């Protein structure tokens, strides 16, 4: 049980409080940038996205090829483990379902390890990137995704803490086991559900 802090009342509870997972605050119009690596300079002319590992047809898309797939848009909220949430944001790209259908995960597939052009990785159960809950996104609120927010394209898994939404995403490796990614090896939770406050290993 949390212990009451002497003198702390907190700021006025926002009307959107029900939309905020526990321990999160509404960052408003800001969109903080938190990254552990040097921001890369990626060229869409040589950009690729791959689905590999335990799939029937390992597949790589170029920038033009992935844009030829049926587009899909997410409208909703995002939640960062550092306690900010951004309410009412819109991303457009392609559903991960579409990409996985093309590659055909084998029956043993249970997890994916998302990897970025920078070497960043993050792990996700297959269930969390299917069923219309994950995207490879390149537009935000109608504009091209800025490079400091992961452009030209990032993974988007908005129902989990935002470190799962790998910036500068390069592909998914389909696995039959869970393999911790970059932050997960460095103390963060393997799943990262903000509504369960799965921030760190052991939560």
């Amino acid at each position: 049980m949390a212990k009451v802090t002497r003198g702390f009342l907190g700021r006025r509870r926002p009307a959107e409080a029900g939309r905020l997972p526990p321990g999160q605050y509404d960052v408003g119009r800001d969109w903080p940038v938190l990254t552990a690596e040097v921001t890369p300079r990626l060229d869409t002319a040589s950009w690729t996205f791959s689905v590999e590992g335990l799939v029937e047809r390992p597949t790589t898309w170029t920038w033009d090829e992935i844009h030829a797939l049926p587009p899909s848009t997410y409208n909703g909220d995002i939640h960062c483990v550092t306690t900010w949430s951004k309410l009412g944001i819109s991303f457009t790209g392609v559903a991960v379902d579409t990409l996985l259908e093309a590659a055909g995960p084998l029956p043993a597939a249970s997890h994916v390890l998302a990897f970025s052009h920078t070497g960043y990785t993050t792990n996700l159960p297959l269930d969390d990137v299917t069923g219309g809950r994950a995207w490879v996104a390149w537009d935000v609120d109608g504009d091209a995704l800025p490079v400091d927010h992961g452009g030209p394209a990032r993974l988007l898994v908005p129902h989990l803490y935002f470190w799962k939404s790998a910036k500068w995403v390069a592909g998914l490796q389909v696995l039959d086991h869970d393999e911790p990614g970059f932050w997960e090896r460095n103390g963060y939770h393997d799943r990262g559900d903000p509504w369960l406050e799965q921030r760190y290993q052991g939560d």
Partner: protein
Amino acid sequence: MGASGGGRRDPWHTATVVGIRDETATAKTFRLALPGPVEFIAGQHYIIRLTAPDGYTASRSYSVASAPDGTNEFEVTIERLPAGEVSMFLHDEVVVGDELEVRGPIGGWFVWRGDAPAVLVGGGSGVVPLMAMLRLARRTGRADLLRLVVSVRSPDDLYYADELPGPEATIVYSRRAPADAERAAGRMGPSDLEPAIMPDATAYVCGSARFADAASHLLVDLDVPVERVRVERFGPTG
């Protein structure tokens, strides 16, 4: 961590504020004591959680500024952000003797264990985790392993002004330099970083998103391999 097999241990601990001192007009260092020994690695952070009587909570991460010293105490330096719910409360309400809930230490990436060469580049309050590293190096007699370059707007904005200067530290003033400074005020550039670069060093860059981007690209342009640059960016964390 560690106790996952058995009953889950409450990760939150009650710390007592045992000291508060001003670093600048807008930054204070809080010295916190825990019931047991504090073990952390320079560069790690703790979370401070505030709880209102109705159960509402607000928590933020703060880098440790002190070096591990074998005691049950550690220090965090906190910038008072306008409209920062947690930092304003800590600055304006908390006094010595108060109890605060903390969790940590956290982080396994932006850490320095004191045994390998490192180039530290900090902007403004981004110096905090780097100060933990510098203090560790000096305490263990290994200051030769470190070079620190810190960029601040003016002398009034420099944290740890009495302690930080030394042969391994360079201070860059971006807007206003002290009267006796050799370098005129101006944005940090390649010539500020080049003397700090050592072969096989890992670079640790900490500051605002804008500062961190600029500094990390300066390092890469000076041929520091991109995989040897570790970055900690912060936004408005209130």
